[in-house]
């Protein structure tokens, strides 16, 4: 018994374990791109997972306690291009750790407390271009074993403990180095010999920010050429800064960045003499950022920057630009967040690019003379413009870029006369006045980009965009339209590829609005109030790829027109609408299901109506629900029709059916005739033409006994009446008329009939009143009078309906008792007897 128990004891917990572990947890990494990119960040891995395919190119192993990298750790992944080992607690990297990674271009080692770096740690790595060794407790550049990485372009050694800027000899091997970041280290002094090895490089960008630099030996940068040098938050005070900048003498640098960081400010008072040393540096672009206590009088400050081509002043308390040197050769000027009180009246003929943004002190625009200006950014100043815009405002005819966004009121007084070269125009979030009263943009035939979003513009004038024949991008979100209807305002915009109409409170689209936009690729109509959209209006948009109709109130698109949607469409956003999921929009709902690969967030599309489907997914709509309703309706209609047809047929062929069903074996039994007709010879016409014709030739055909035809000649009339008439007939038809009462024979016949009926208990008498009778005349025949008063009789009416009813009733009466056995006859005659008496 023991082995089975042991087996069970093993199996049960093992199965419980297997049930708890989801299949994915065997695989420690997330597959981002199959076989290429794997993300193993923070998976508590102590070693490199072996389950990753050897074709991997991007591998993120960050935040795993790998602790050390042994030799050839990555040899299973020879295709690796990017390897992230951030914060892997790596203390030791052995020789040839990256052996075999011949294609690795980026190696990230940020945040590892490396203590032991073997001399051959980075051997191999034939293609390495970027090495990030930020915060790795590096205290010296001297023994860092990267001298063989000739392909290296970017070396980031920020946030370490390096205290000497002496670049070791191996830097002369790094001939491709473009970017060296030594910021946030502990470099205090820079000596002449430190940069000795860099003398042959021209393309290097060097960042030395956040080092507490005290001293730069004047020959250190002499005859050196750098692409960029950044010195931010390096100096304790103006004096240090002054001497250090003087120490940069002889440097040729494309871009020099000086200043501090907002949160790292050391210089209490900034003196303009600090920049005197710039005169002995050859600078192309100069930037100064974040300096408190900027001197109020700036005269003399820019004297060493006269020949610079680009100046950028960011977050300085400049207040004004009074006192700028006259013969400046600046081509580009940036004044960002400089608290300048008034819009400066600049006269700078050389200036091509002027950025004056986020200077909240200036409140209105003044005319300036910048004859060669091509690029003008005046955004985010909260300024107002009394009359915009023409050549006179800036004295330039070369302007291509104009940004007036995020300002106050801008009154459109002119239509860009002299500014015909404009390609980019941005007014967003400024208040445009009079923009919809005339063709403001008429002369801008070269404009490619126009943004008038959120400018409080109410589009009422159809020609608002006239003349913009080259326009490719039009953004006009957050405005409004007359009658909330999108009308034909895009006629000239035949080259438009991007159109944003979101948040415009639109409810309707007029016909043919998009007919000229055959190049349009992107159309945003979200956040409007559309209820029903006409797919037909999108038909002319042959190249449309993205259509966004989200956040509207759309119930449905017109079902028949859905095929008119452009076939080029790749993305359609219909989320957050009020879809009606009732059967009347069945074709639209089916279309949504068919196009789900096109739709953004198809699963999130929800029904708002009918109530029983509220908040349910549109995709859960089933055609079968509608089919069931249809089937029910169809079946009902068909059955009603069938029943009515049958009823009509039964009515029409009632007597045929009677014959077929119940009276098939009908025979007159011993009787020869169905009825003996008592009538006056005056009524002969009626009897021959109507009675005989209808009863003997119709269905069922009755055989009547008529005196002129059936009485045997040579026999007494009375005998004929009894022998042929009563004796051989089942029933008696009495045709009562004026003549009948007056005819003695008729009365005789009638009286015999009564007697006969009484004696033989035989057939009933059927009265047909042929015409209205005079009462006095009728009273002569007391019996008849009483009978007609008490009994039902048939009255002849000479119209279509009357005749129809008459013949049916008569036939029915004659059919009574038409049974083969004749017993029915007997019963019937009894009933008639009782009714007669």
């Amino acid at each position, binding site marked *: 018994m023991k082995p089975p128990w042991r087996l069970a004891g093993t199996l049960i*917990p093992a199965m419980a374990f297997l049930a708890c572990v989801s299949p994915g*947890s065997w695989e420690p990494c997330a597959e981002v791109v199959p076989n290429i990119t794997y993300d193993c*960040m923070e998976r508590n891995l102590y070693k490199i997972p072996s389950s990753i395919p050897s074709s991997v190119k991007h591998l993120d192993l960050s935040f795993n306690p790998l602790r050390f990298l042994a030799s050839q750790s990555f040899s299973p992944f020879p295709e690796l291009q990017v390897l992230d080992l951030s914060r892997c607690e790596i203390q030791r990297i052995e020789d040839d750790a990256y052996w075999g990674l011949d294609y690795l271009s980026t190696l*990230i080692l940020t945040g590892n407390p490396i203590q032991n770096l073997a001399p051959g740690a980075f051997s191999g790595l034939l293609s390495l271009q970027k090495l990030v060794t930020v915060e790795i407790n590096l205290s010296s550049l001297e023994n860092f074993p990267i001298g063989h990485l000739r392909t290296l372009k970017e070396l980031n050694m920020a946030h370490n403990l390096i205290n000497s800027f002496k670049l070791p000899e191996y830097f002369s091997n790094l001939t491709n180095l473009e970017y060296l970041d030594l910021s946030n280290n502990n470099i205090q002094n820079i000596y002449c010999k430190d940069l000795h090895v860099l003398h042959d490089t021209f393309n290097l960008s060097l960042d030395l920010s956040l080092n507490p630099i005290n001293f730069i030996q004047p020959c250190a940068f002499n005859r050196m050429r750098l692409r960029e040098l950044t010195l931010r938050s390096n100096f304790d005070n103006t004096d240090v800064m002054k001497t250090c900048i003087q120490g940069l003498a002889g440097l040729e640098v494309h871009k020099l960045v000086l200043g501090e960081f*907002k949160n790292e400010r050391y210089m209490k008072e900034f003196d303009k003499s600090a920049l005197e040393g710039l005169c002995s540096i050859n600078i192309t672009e100069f930037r100064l950022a974040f300096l408190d206590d900027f001197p109020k009088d700036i005269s003399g400050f820019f004297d060493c920057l006269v020949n610079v081509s680009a100046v950028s002043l960011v977050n300085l308390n400049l207040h004004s630009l009074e006192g700028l040197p006259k013969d400046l050769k600046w081509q580009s000027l940036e004044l960002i967040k400089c608290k300048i009180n008034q819009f400066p009246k600049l006269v700078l003929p050389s200036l091509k690019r002027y950025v004056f943004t986020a200077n909240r002190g200036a409140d209105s625009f003044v005319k300036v003379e910048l004859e060669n200006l091509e690029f003008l950014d005046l955004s985010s100043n909260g300024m107002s413009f009394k009359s915009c815009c023409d050549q006179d405002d800036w004295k330039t005819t070369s302007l291509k870029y104009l940004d007036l966004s995020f300002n106050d009121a801008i009154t459109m007084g002119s239509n860009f006369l002299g500014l015909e070269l404009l390609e980019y125009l941005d007014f967003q979030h400024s208040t445009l006045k009079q923009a919809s009263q005339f063709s403001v943009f008429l002369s801008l035939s070269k404009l490619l980009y126009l943004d008038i979003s959120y400018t409080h513009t109410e589009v009422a004038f159809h020609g608002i965009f006239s003349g913009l024949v080259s326009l490719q991008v039009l953004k006009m979100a957050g405005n409004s339209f007359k009658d909330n209807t999108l009308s034909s305002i895009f006629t000239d915009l035949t080259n438009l590829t991007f159109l944003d109409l979101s948040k415009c409170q639109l409810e309707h689209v007029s016909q043919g609005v998009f007919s000229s936009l055959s190049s349009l690729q992107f159309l945003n109509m979200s956040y409007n109030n559309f209820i029903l959209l006409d797919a037909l209006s999108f038909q002319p948009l042959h190249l449309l790829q993205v259509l966004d109709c989200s956040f509207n109130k759309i119930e449905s698109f017109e079902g028949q027109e859905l095929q008119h949607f452009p076939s080029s469409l790749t993305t359609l956003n219909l989320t957050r609408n009020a879809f009606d999921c009732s059967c009347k929009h069945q074709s639209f709902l089916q279309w949504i299901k068919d196009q789900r690969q096109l739709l953004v967030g198809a699963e999130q599309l929800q029904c708002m109506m009918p109530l029983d489907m509220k908040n349910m997914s549109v995709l859960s709509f089933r055609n079968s629900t509608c089919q069931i309703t249809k089937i029910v309706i169809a079946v009902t209609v068909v059955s009603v029709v069938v029943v009515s047809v049958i009823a009509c047929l039964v009515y029409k062929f009632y007597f045929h059916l009677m014959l077929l069903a119940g009276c098939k074996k009908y025979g007159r039994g011993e009787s020869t005739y169905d009825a003996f007709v008592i009538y006056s010879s005056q009524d002969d016409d009626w009897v021959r033409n109507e009675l005989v014709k209808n009863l003997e030739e119709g269905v069922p055909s009755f055989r009547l006994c008529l005196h002129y035809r059936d009485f045997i000649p040579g026999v007494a009339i009375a005998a004929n009446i009894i022998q042929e008439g009563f004796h051989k007939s089942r029933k008696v038809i009495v045709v009562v008329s004026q003549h009948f009462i007056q005819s003695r024979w008729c009365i005789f016949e009638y009286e015999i009939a009564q007697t006969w009926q009484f004696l033989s208990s035989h057939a009933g008498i059927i009265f047909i009143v042929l015409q209205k009778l005079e009462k006095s005349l009728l009273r002569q025949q007391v019996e008849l009078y009483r009978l007609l008063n008490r009994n039902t009789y048939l009255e002849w009416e000479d119209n279509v309906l009357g005749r129809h009813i008459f013949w049916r009733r008569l036939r029915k009466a004659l059919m009574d008792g038409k049974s083969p056995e004749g017993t029915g006859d007997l019963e019937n005659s009894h009933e008639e007897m009782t009714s007669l008496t």
Partner: protein
Amino acid sequence: MTGFVAALLLWTLVSPGSSDWGGGSAWPTHTACRKEGLEVLYQSCDPLQDFGFSVDQCAKHLKPNLNVRFGIILREDIRELYLDIALISKGDFVLNYSYPICEAELPKFSFCGRKKGEQMNYYGPINNPGFEVYEGKYQVLVELYNEKRATVACANATIICS
């Protein structure tokens, strides 16, 4: 029984849901400051990590340019960094505020451009106006994210003023 023990041991060793992943359980609630009737509590809503935050001065009459301390180990590069703050009072969004902290072209703070895996400590003023905090309980959602819209830090804070 050896089999049972072996299986149990294996289960304990490999069992998922151990706290190392940090995904399952919520982070603890920390106190950023508590003084003079004002209490600020916060809890990290980033499943990847917790962080440290404190406010130096804490009073109902909030002073301008408060000094704060903030410390985190970055899970993302922050070449660009943006801040979103939403203030919720009684279930309604009272204030939504978005602010660029680091921009690629104009790094404003010294921590701009720091790398994934690098420590980031900030001690200094924030650019807030001074105002009076009214009595009540407020919820604040704070999120820091980078240019790839990846969350750098995220917190649910509660401000109780009594």
